[in-house]
């Protein structure tokens, strides 16, 4: 049991590290496009860009996944995945839903 738990923690840490490094690479390449792809605010994008490798590694070694599920509504999820949809259409649908989600995040951030 504890062995399995240790393995899960390590897997989470691996994903966190890969995710953080990718996110930082994206932000450094093209800030606005990265914000679009990652669904993060400009403040968070700037923070990601400025993090050192040591900071990233420290943050990644967590028991919690740092990337969250972006299709967090059952209705949207089943609309995209459902009924054996063609890959191209599925990708297009995903793109449209993700854009709206990124905007919503921004709007609530502005409103707050």
């Amino acid at each position, binding site marked *: 049991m504890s062995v399995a738990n240790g393995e899960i923690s390590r897997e989470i840490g691996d994903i966190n590290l890969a995710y953080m490094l990718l996110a930082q690479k994206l932000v450094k390449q093209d800030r606005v496009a990265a914000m679009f792809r990652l669904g993060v605010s400009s403040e968070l994008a700037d923070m990601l860009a400025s993090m050192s490798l040591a900071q990233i590694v420290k943050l990644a070694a967590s028991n919690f996944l740092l990337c969250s599920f972006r299709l967090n*509504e059952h209705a949207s999820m089943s*609309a995209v995945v459902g009924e054996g949809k*063609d890959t191209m259409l599925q990708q297009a649908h995903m*793109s*449209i839903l993700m*854009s709206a989600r990124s*905007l919503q995040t921004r709007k609530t951030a502005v409103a707050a």
Partner: protein
Amino acid sequence: MTRKSVLGEVREVQLAIQLIQLGARLQFLESEVGLSRERLIRLYKEIKGVSPPKGLLPFSTDWYMTWLANIHSSMFYNMYQFMKIHSDKEKVWILIKSYKLYLQQIAAQDSEPILDFTRAYTMVRFFDSDMLQLSTCCRCSGQFVAHAHDHKSGYVCVLCRPPSRAGKARGAKRAAAGEVAALGIEGMGFGVETAPGGTGLH
């Protein structure tokens, strides 16, 4: 803009080159770039190897409502909106940026761009002049390009309710090919529009 700085002119030329490479029409270049028509034509010839196509842009809002076009238009406009909110650049640069992002997305999906640059620009103008709107699908909550003043409640998008003929993968490809062929557009689609009955721009 009577006397332009050398640097300003370099920027204009760079803008024109980007736009021509993306497939912008001459009418668009003239309205967005502060260079003479003659210089724009020369640039166009140098980059494309041919003279810019003549003729007006008889685009209608109806094109954006056809099945595959609506999917691509909605993808693009969502990106454009995002860029507009998060970028402090000029509108034309936002247009270029979001169009490139659209092309990237299409390449990642292994499919062909259906929305050409001029159509993307025309769509933005239609939105600005309140002829198009984004309607929210009541099933997937995605936002899709729709005619302005369409009733918004109970709207179901083209992806949640695809037409039966286009429901399958092969059907989609055929429909896309058919649409492109019908418009006489090759590849990236910079050909002269021949579709009749369009609501002219301007």
